[in-house]
């Protein structure tokens, strides 16, 4: 029962894989609804899953925060499939069409399984396997188009990913060597604040930093974001980041919890560098996917602020912001995917005059960007506010200042896109985009969520309650 969501996703993956063998090109259009049905079923199963419990001799465990992570993964996957539907169908425009939809969806679902497992792992081996399952399929997805850019993206992603993975594995090895146990929960009692422990911590942080795109482990991101098909980029920017955060929380809160307070300065430095570099470089980008890559980097910097306070407030703020970031970023990507699908362009300036051609799309994109920039009353503002207040409570007032300045800088580049859409005239002969109903539905739902999460306090309150329960389960 505890593992039901994962099992449903794996089963759906295999069903798709096998069905794919027997279906004609045209019939394969059925695969997308099937995948959506599978994810929806998993969401339903998650809803019924109790938020604590242990399986497999303690290697797999549910806790209140894992529940929220799984919810984020599943929602992100559901929306991503909705947004991808236009490119997977048999009638998709040729150079940008994603071939072999069955395999694409299967790999996506396996990737999702890895992430779902990741949130529940409790020992080093499961953690590592789940992490690889949450990473390696992404290399394939990034290179799906097999053109020059896609190939470059996939290859770079794999090389850097392997390096990060190796460093992380080294870290795990050191950790095992010091403690002699695989169980994460047993480690804090066996660890001492010495150089070896911190050495392992640094190695693991580097491995997770790769997934979370923390500076300086972020260099792969712009190229991969640009070269991968936009739906994959969307998935990458949301789910992969969420997976990174779940590992980091696992490691920092479960294993290195006794030293978390001592290393908070290092976290603050990492956060500062990440958000500042992300934002500064985003200013000068001309390609929207690279631009979103740096935007995502800076968002990871904000997320780190939640680690500064060890308590449940920080965890709650991070999980809530992750949820907000996921829906907001997906709403932005919905428009990017559609625009790329129908114009083939990824240049910022090609969004000029969108407000006159597609007023509703432009409005949704504007709301999405404002949400990422953190303008009240959108959810992005509330999420950032909570994170900043965590930093302030931990006494890092200078960091709140830095983050606030960074937010302002980020507004500048988000507004650059808004300016293109609302102030510049449309290009000669530009035609309005025609969104499919599934993409429209995905966009509508994410946009609505990115607004409602900011004004309806229920979600944050339940995250907060979960975080408190989770902290108790950590066995203070």
């Amino acid at each position, binding site marked *: 029962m505890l593992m039901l969501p994962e099992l449903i996703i794996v089963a759906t993956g295999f069903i798709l894989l096998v069905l794919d063998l027997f279906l004609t090109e045209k019939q394969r259009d059925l695969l997308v609804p099937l995948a959506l049905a599978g994810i929806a079923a998993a969401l339903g199963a998650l809803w019924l899953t109790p938020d604590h419990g242990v399986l497999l001799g303690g290697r797999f465990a549910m806790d209140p925060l894992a529940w929220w992570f799984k919810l984020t993964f599943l929602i992100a996957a559901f929306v991503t499939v909705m947004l991808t539907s236009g490119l997977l169908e048999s009638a998709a425009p040729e150079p940008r069409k994603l071939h072999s939809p069955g395999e694409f969806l299967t790999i996506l679902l396996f990737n999702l399984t890895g992430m779902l497992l990741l949130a529940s792992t409790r020992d080093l081996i499961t953690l590592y396997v789940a992490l690889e399952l949450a990473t390696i399929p992404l290399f394939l997805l990034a290179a799906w188009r097999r053109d020059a850019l896609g190939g470059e993206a996939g*290859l*770079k992603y794999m*090389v*850097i990913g392997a*390096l*990060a993975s190796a*460093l992380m594995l080294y870290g795990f090895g050191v950790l095992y060597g010091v403690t002699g146990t695989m169980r994460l929960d047993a480690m804090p009692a066996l660890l001492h*604040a*010495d*150089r070896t422990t*911190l*050495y392992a*911590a*640094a*190695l693991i*942080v*580097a491995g997770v*930093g*790769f997934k979370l795109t923390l*500076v*300086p*482990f972020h*260099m*792969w991101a*712009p*190229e991969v974001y640009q070269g991968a098909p936009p739906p994959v980029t969307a998935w990458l920017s949301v789910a992969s980041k969420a997976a990174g955060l779940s590992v980091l929380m696992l490691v920092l809160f479960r294993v290195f919890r006794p030293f978390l307070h*001592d*290393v908070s*300065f*290092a976290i603050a*430095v*990492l956060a500062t560098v990440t958000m500042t*570099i992300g934002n*500064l*470089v*985003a*200013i*000068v*980008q001309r390609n929207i996917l690279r631009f979103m890559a740096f935007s995502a980097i800076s968002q990871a910097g904000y997320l780190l602020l939640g680690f500064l306070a060890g308590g449940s407030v920080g965890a709650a703020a991070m999980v809530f912001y992750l949820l907000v970031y996921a829906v907001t970023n997906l709403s932005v990507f919905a428009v990017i995917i559609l625009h790329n699908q129908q114009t083939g362009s990824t240049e910022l300036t090609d969004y000029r005059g969108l407000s006159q051609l597609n007023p509703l799309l432009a409005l949704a994109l504007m709301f999405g960007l404002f949400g990422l920039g953190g303008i009240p009353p959108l959810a992005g503002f509330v999420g950032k506010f909570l994170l900043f207040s965590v930093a302030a409570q931990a006494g890092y007032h200078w960091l709140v200042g830095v983050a606030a300045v960074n937010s302002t*800088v980020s507004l*500048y580049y988000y507004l650059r896109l808004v300016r293109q859409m609302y102030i510049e005239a449309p290009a000669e002969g530009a035609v309005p985009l025609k969104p499919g109903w599934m993409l429209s539905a995905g966009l509508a739902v994410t946009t609505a969520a990115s607004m409602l999460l900011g004004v309806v*306090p229920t979600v944050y309150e339940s995250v907060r309650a979960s975080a408190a329960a989770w902290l108790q389960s950590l066995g203070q």
Partner: protein
Amino acid sequence: MPPLSFILTHAWLIPAIPLLSFLLVGLVLRPVSQKLAGLVATLAVGTSAGLSWLLAWDFLHLVPHGQPLPALVPWSFQWLHFQENFAINLGTLLDPISVMLLVVVTTVSTLVHIYSTGYMHGEPGYARYFAFLNLFTFSMLGLVLAPNLVQMYVCWELVGASSFFLIGFYFEKPSAVSASKKAFIVTRFADLGFLLGILVIGFYAYQIHGAMAPDLLHGQQPLDFAFLTRPDVLARLAGLNVHFLGVGVLTLSAVLIYMGGAGKSAMFPLHIWLPDAMEGPTPVSALIHAATMVVAGVYLVARCFPIFATSGEALTVVMSIGAFTSLFAAVIGCTQDDIKRVLAFSTLSQLGYMMFALGVASFAHPLGYSASMFHLFTHAFFKALLFLGAGSVIHAVHSNDIWHMGGLRKHMPITHALFLIATLAIAGIYPLAGFFSKDEILAAALHSGHTVVFGVGLLVAGMTAFYMFRIYFVTFWGKPRSEHAAHPHESPWVMLAPMAFLGVLSIGAGFVPIPEWVQLPGAPVEHEGIDLAVAIPSTILALAGISLAWLLYGGAPERVDNLVKKLGGFYVAAKNKFYFDEFYLFVTHSVIFRFVAQPIAWFDRNIVDGLVNLGGWFARTAGLLLGKLQTGQVQTYGSWLVSGVIAVVFVLWGVLKSGGN
């Protein structure tokens, strides 16, 4: 207490209906059909009025006759949760004054809506007008029902904004635009005080709230009126040894809150916006600038009365400013020629009356409190009627100037009769509504020992009778003095019917036992019948005022000219409203704009913008340089990753070293 009836627990419906109608009319119906928009808006407010009457009926029957009426919050929900013991609720507070004002607001608003369907007929922006009237009604009702200072403040600002929209309804007219701006800026400036007051009292109330035992709180939040007006809380607030410029916290916050009330109720010296606000459509003036919004300030002081009473000094401020305003506005009112402006100054004067009535009240002599609310009640009806009557006259003559009118009583008999009723009511002639409430205020001033205020009140009563009958005689008697005045038409029945209804209320409202219902909680009952020691002099003075008006304006106008010459400078000064507008204009334009705003603007344009541009340039350059790191070489990326690990290792070791020692 019997179980609460449906309408008592669902009082939120009363403001909700106009809000929904505002959205419906403003967003959906406005482009579709003007007629339908007006109809829906009117029906919505009419429904609210019906519900309010029902609610008042149920409320009055909650307790057996003779017992004090309760104050309850039957419906509320948490809106903002700041901290464990600091949250803001939205809800409905039902107590005698809120129920009374609920009835007044919805009734007058309904009548004004009906009247407007005739008065605004054929105007461009007809539907917009009704949408804003709905918005205003919603905001005002939200304000009346507010159970805490924050909801009140939010609705307070909404009221200000909708008033701004309505004063500036004729936005092609520059004078209307500047009037709406003036009203907004002056009241907004005053609201700054209100906000500061909320913050000051909220800060200390929060601390007291936190220090109290939870079972003593009864679920009250720090900014709830129920909490702020508790005797034990007030005693602690008064006992705080915190002073600002030698003023205690309680007095300071009370005076700051009063500043907001003074702005809305146009007390001297914040009165300057109200006469100009007459640029709006006349029914708007009847609703907003006579019966509802302008009394919000009085209502606020009444709502917070225990705070003012505990402070004492704050109450003296309220009393002095109220008394002065009532006299000051009456003097100006005697000299104005624009019929609506005279009414505006008379409103100022009457608001001053209500304010000083509150000011003379205390826990020992609570009569002023009841009297003030009583006068608020009666004044709403006869002043609305006066405005609607003025609107009817303006509609016929196409001018606001009383000297362009004259002899209208023959052509407009119904308007004339109703205007006369309202004029007699405001002059305080028995048995019309104004007599009773004014009498009560004067009695309250006399019996609480404020003889000077009593004298001022008497004098103002006489002057009110004089200037009101001045416009009455000039408008309705004598010979027509303009082309339009010679052949006016009586207004259509949609305008006359609401006026007639108000006429009935202007006659009968004095017999409603408001003072019996509206009692200061926790104070002895102090109510008496007509006090002849007050009634006789006030009636004599009123009759004297009327006679003087008849003498000067009923017949030959030369008599006036002679008098004006004798009064000379004083008359000119009063006619120019004692040059307050010029004074404010001088202060803002010649002093603040030139010596403060312009240097700051220069600093902003050159220094601040320069720094901002420098920051932008810096960020862009940094971005360009950092972007160069993105070489596209996977080897570079790998080396960055590894160097990153090394850096993190050293940072962590460094932290360990400094933390370990």
